[in-house]
Each structure stands twice: as C-alpha cells, then as structure tokens.
C-alpha cells in the first residue's frame, strides 16, 4: 500500500509538506509517494492511498495532526478511523463530470519520474511519430483533430505548424512554448508543468518534428519557480534516456530543449513581445506581418504555442485526431481547461468538452456560489476578456458563441462573481492591471488605458460626473483602434462588457453616489439602528476617526461628516446594529 501526497503549488501552500514530514516519521520512505496537482484546490492537502494501481481512498483537507491515523490505517488496512477524511460523493462530482485530456496525468503520476510517465503510456506517441509518420502526416492528424490555440486566440494549430514547416526563409527553425500565463486568475499551465512536465516535452518534440525545428525553448514566467524546477528535472531525465538531444530514439531526428525564465511582464505573453524578451530586449511587441513563422526569434522561422495546446498533442497522435474532434462543437473541438475561482464553492481546475454550458460548469461542477448567494456574472479571459451576466449563463463553451457575448474564451481563467461584487470595481481592477502592464509603445494604449483607469477610479470614489460613461466608450474605441498588439486591443473589453450588461451600476455610482454591492467604501454610509443599539460603547471605543457619540446604555450615533467608512464598527458590533447603505 502506498500513500501519495499532492504536492503542486496549491497543495504545498495548503500545508502538504508538513503532512509529508509528519508521515515520514511514521511510515517507511518507500510507502510515501508524490504527485502533482489534481486540480481540486478547494480540498488540498490531498492524500491518496493506493494498492498497486488501484486508488483505495482519497483523503482531503488533511493536516499533520491526521498523520498518525493515516499511518495506522495503512499499516492495519483498517480505514474506519480515517473515514472523516474521505472525500464526499458530492465533491467527487467535481472530477467525475470532467473529461480530462490535457490534465490526464495530473494528480495521478509522480511528476519527477519519467518511468511513471512511461508506465502510463507516455512517449508512445513520440515513438509512433518517429517510427511511422512523416511530418506532413503529423500535421494532417492535428488538422483532423481541430486543435486550436489554447492560449486564448483559438487559431488552428495545424495551420501555424504548416506555415512554419513551409517557410522558405533561411535559418534554423525554432519551436517555442509560451508558458508566460500572465492572466490573473489563471493557473492551468502552472499546474500542467508542475504535474506532468513530460507531456509538455513530448508534445513539443512532436511539434518540432512536424515543423523541422532542432531546438525548443520554453518561456516560463518568473513567478513559477516550482514549475521551472520540475521541468528542468524532466528535461535532464529525457536527455539521459535519449529522448532529447542527438538522434532521438535512434530516429535520426535531433532536438534540444531549454528553459528561459520571464522577468515579470504581462505583455510578454504576446508572442512577438515574448520573442523580443527571448532576444534579451524590452518585451515590446512587433508589427505582424511578418508573422513569427516567417521572421521570429532573431528573424528566423519560429512557431509559438501555449502549454495546454502542446499537452493535447500526444493524446491526439495516440488516439487519433478524429477521436478528439468527436468532442466539442462544430467550430470548437476537443476540451478546454478552466481555472474556476472566485465566489465559488469548489474552486480548482476544470477540463470539459467544448459545448458544455457555463451554468453547468459553475453549478454542477463548481457546486454553485459560496454561501448560496446569488450569482451575478462570470468573468472569462482575464484582462482581455469580459463579464458574462447571469441571464447568459446558458451560453456554451465555444470560441464563436463566447465572443458573441462580448467576452472571449481566453486562456481559461473563469472568475465567478456574486451579488456582493461591484462591476465598476471589476472594470477598474482590470484597467489598474492593463494600464500598469502596457509596454508604452503605442500612444493610444499607453495613455488611453491610463485615462480609463483614472475615470473608473473617480467613479468608484464618488467623483463620477455626467459624460464619464460616454468618454469611457469613446476611449474604448480609440484604444482598440490605435493599439498594435492584443494587450491594447483587448484592454477595453472589461469596460465594454460591464457597460453593456451592468450600465445601471455605472449610473448608480455616478448619479446616485451608490454602490449597491457595498464594495466601493467611499460611497457607503454607515448608520446605527437605534432600535438595535444597546449602548455598549464598543464601536465608539474602536472608531479610528472618533466619529461615534453616545452615552453608556443609550443608542449611539455616527457623525457622517467624520466617518471614514472603515467598517470597524460594523465588524465589532455584537448586536447587528450597524447598517451599511
């Protein structure tokens, strides 16, 4: 019997290593194994008990205090004392309703073992490609699958590979993996690299073979040190067994792989900015055309794909493109991984076939809203995306259908918002981000995002004025038009979608000075309900602005002119006497 601990970044942040240390004191080292992120972040730390390849028990929210009980159970094969840790059948639905292709090995195999990867079918697709397929045949299989770029653009992968393959520009060909994953709220690629690094290597090798590249680079953002570490180890292991380097598996095909870390710039997720960064320069995007397939890394033909795109490749080669295309909709084939977060009960990684509705993801898989509050919107696509309101939740996950709502599929970040989320605040949040991350090359993006940020800040602070909404709309058009790259072109999307579906919130902020979600603190009013106040003086004693007056045992009053709206009184009142308007 073996005990396998989930050790992705989330698991570790939740305390998995403490659980490991506790178990190592009680069990033999060989009985303790490690796996990556299974994507059920809301249940971490997770400990699985295996008998051979069979999963006997899945224990969740484990702490070091449970180590003794777990060790006893494993030694005696009597699990009755740890039944309190077992995953509930409702929570199991989170995984059961998913279709895992990209995430197929995550949380199952040991990411630091190439043997584990191979035992689970790994590198079989690469063998098939090198022994039996021509590069054109590989591209044909990817074409059949309908695989489209999972980084957000949704461009047909086979087309990019073919363009790079056919490029007549002189020079070496380069295969690059975009692991910059800069969208706040997205961590699909992080989990993939931490939990199944070999599937990235295999997918990339197949791509390199298809386009005729002899070197591969993975550009990983600096903020993912564990992913970098795991990938470095996997590359070393692959080199040792001849899967990377000269004459791979005796096929005559040679290819090398290296990792280059980003240095903290969201714009470097844009492929030409990424190339500039790989060249050691400021990450400022280039004009397209020429496309990277023509002039990429140091002006040589290059092909860039996202991590998740590559993670699907080996499965497609092994099972056939047609099988992948059986899943999904007419214009969106296969599955998509989402990072489901926000005000959701079950937060984590969700991989579903295209064609499932957003409502199903949020309620059947995600379990609905925390505290059973009312859902307000779902934000898709990060700072380039938009908010989809409750009445459109039956929209299916499909590149075309989602863009018809004004949002985009994006890289996979799906943030759920409830009645307590201020939509103007969300637009401001995204503009704070894009204004900061704008590289500055284009006047419209550099100044336009800044001006939009200023207007949104004024509105959330009660200083919105007549004409602000129209000015925002005008700026949105201007920035979209005048920006060179995707960052600027999509920066207005959060504003445009919130204006489209939640215009009333903007108007309430500006004309009524109200924030119904009670998030914009400057717009709130604090009042003491005299019928509930017992005059205990706790609020007055804790008020940092000394704005509360009253005598002991008599109802107190807040002086609205002195109140700084910090909310301290509301937090400390034991009688629910503070009303927030």
């Amino acid at each position, binding site marked *: 019997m073996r005990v396998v601990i989930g050790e992705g970044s989330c698991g570790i942040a939740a305390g998995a290593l403490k659980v490991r240390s506790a178990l190592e004191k009680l069990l033999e080292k060989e009985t303790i194994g490690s796996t990556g992120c299974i994507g059920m972040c809301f249940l971490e730390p997770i400990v699985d008990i295996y008998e051979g390849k069979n999963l006997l028990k899945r224990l969740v929210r484990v702490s070091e205090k449970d180590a003794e009980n777990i060790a006893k159970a494993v030694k005696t094969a009597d699990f009755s004392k740890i039944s309190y840790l077992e995953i509930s059948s409702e929570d199991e639905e989170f995984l059961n309703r998913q279709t895992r292709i990209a995430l197929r090995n995550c949380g199952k195999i040991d990411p630091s073992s190439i043997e584990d990867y191979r035992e689970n079918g790994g590198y079989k697709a690469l063998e098939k490609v090198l022994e039996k397929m021509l590069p054109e045949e590989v591209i044909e299989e990817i074409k059949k699958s309908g695989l489209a770029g999972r980084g957000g653009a949704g461009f047909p992968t086979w087309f990019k590979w073919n363009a790079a393959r056919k490029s007549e520009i002189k020079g070496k060909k380069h295969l690059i993996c975009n692991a910059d994953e800069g969208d706040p709220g997205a961590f699909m690629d992080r989990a993939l690299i931490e939990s199944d690094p070999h599937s990235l290597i295999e997918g990339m090798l197949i791509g390199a073979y298809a386009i005729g590249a002899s070197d591969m680079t993975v550009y990983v953002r600096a903020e993912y040190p564990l992913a970098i570490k795991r990938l470095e180890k996997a590359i070393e292991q692959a080199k040792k067994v001849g899967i990377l380097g000269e004459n791979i598996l005796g096929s005559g095909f040679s290819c090398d792989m290296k990792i*280059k870390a980003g240095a903290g710039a969201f714009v470097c997720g844009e492929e030409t900015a990424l190339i500039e960064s790989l060249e050691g320069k400021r990450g400022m995007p280039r004009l397209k055309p020429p496309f990277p397939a023509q002039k990429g890394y140091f002006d040589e033909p290059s092909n860039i794909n996202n991590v998740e795109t590559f993670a699907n490749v080996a499965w497609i080669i092994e099972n056939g493109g047609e099988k992948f295309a059986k899943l999904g909709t007419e214009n969106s084939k296969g599955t998509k991984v989402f990072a489901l977060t926000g005000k959701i009960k079950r937060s984590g990684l969700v991989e579903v076939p295209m064609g499932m509705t957003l409502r199903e993801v949020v309620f059947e898989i995600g379990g609905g809203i925390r505290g059973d509050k009312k859902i307000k919107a779902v934000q898709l696509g990060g700072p380039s995306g938009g908010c989809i309101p409750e009445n459109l939740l039956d929209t299916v996950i499909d590149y075309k259908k989602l863009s018809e709502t004004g949002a985009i599929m994006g890289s996979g970040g799906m943030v759920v918002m409830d009645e307590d989320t201020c939509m103007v605040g969300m637009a401001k949040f995204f503009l704070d981000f894009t204004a900061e991350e704008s590289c500055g090359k284009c006047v419209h993006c550099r100044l336009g995002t800044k001006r939009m940020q200023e207007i949104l800040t004024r509105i959330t602070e009660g200083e919105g004025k007549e004409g602000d909404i129209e000015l925002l709309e005008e700026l949105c058009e201007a920035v979209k038009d005048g920006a060179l790259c995707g960052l600027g072109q999509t920066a207005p999307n959060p504003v445009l979608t919130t204006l489209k579906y939640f215009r009333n919130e903007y108007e309430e902020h500006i004309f009524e000075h109200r924030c119904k979600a009670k998030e914009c603190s400057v717009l709130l009013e604090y009042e003491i309900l005299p019928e509930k106040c017992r005059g205990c003086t706790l609020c007055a004693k804790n008020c940092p602005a000394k704005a509360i007056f009253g005598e002991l045992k008599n109802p107190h009053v807040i002086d609205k002119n002195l109140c700084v709206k910090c909310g301290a009184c509301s937090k400390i009142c034991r009688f629910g006497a503070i009303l927030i308007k």
Partner: protein
Amino acid sequence: MDALQSNLKLLEPVLDEFAPEKGSLITILQKAQEIYGYLPKDVIYHIAKKTGNTPAEVLGVATFYSQFRLEPLGKYLVMVCQGTACHVNGSEKVSAAVSEYLGIESGKTTEDGLFTFEKVACLGCCSLAPVIMINGEAFGNLTTEKAVRILKNLREKEGA
C-alpha cells in the same frame, strides 16, 4: 545612489558562460540579482561593458521587467497577490492592512530593513485567495487579522 562598491568578481562565472550567447541579457541580469540581492548601479555598468550594450540599454531592460530591483530588499519580501480571484475575495483590504501595519507603501522597505512590501500580479494559488507570499512561502485563506499576525510573528522572531 549607492556609494557601495559591489564585488564584481562574483559575476565573472555568469559573464563567462552567458555573455557570448546572444539574447542572454535577461538571464545575466537574473543571475546578477541572485548574487547581489538586487542590481546595483556599478553592476549594471559592468554588465553593459561586458555584453557590448550601452548602460542605457541595460537599464532599459532592467526597468522594463518587474522582477528586477534597483534597490536592496528587506529580509522578508512580502508579496500581496493582486490577482482576480484574490481581488474578488478581498485582497485590497489585506493590502491595506499590511501597508498600515508595516507603515510603508507598496514597493518600499521598512526602515529596519526587515520587510519589503510589494503588490504582485497573480501568484497562481487562486483557490486559496486571498494569498500573500513571504520569501517564497505562500499563505492563503487570509483575513486582515491573519495577515497582520503572520507579520507580527516574524517581527517577534527577529527580536525587533
């Protein structure tokens, strides 16, 4: 800015390995920061000399990327995540509480050199929102009280 003279010899192995490689400037700056804790001005000038770039070009790259620091760090680097999930779960209040407790704005270091406070983009632990990371260790499911308590404990540990 710094009258300090850095020990440039420490950088030799990095320059020997990477300076001849084209496109390696960011890697060199990253390794230099690992050695010195930040990028002192004389190190930047030295890197420029050894890589055939102007100091302006090197500084241009160093100031473009948020990872590079031109000033020394405190003993504890406190990063407060500003990702979407953290925002929706109250990260602004946590940021405000950290800023208030430490008495500094984002990007600054406390006078005793103990804490540097930074607001950072998504750390990728969204299901534990709101999250702060201190010297690479993540702390999740925070409230303003929990966050301040973590910092208080560190201060006490340092006997400050």
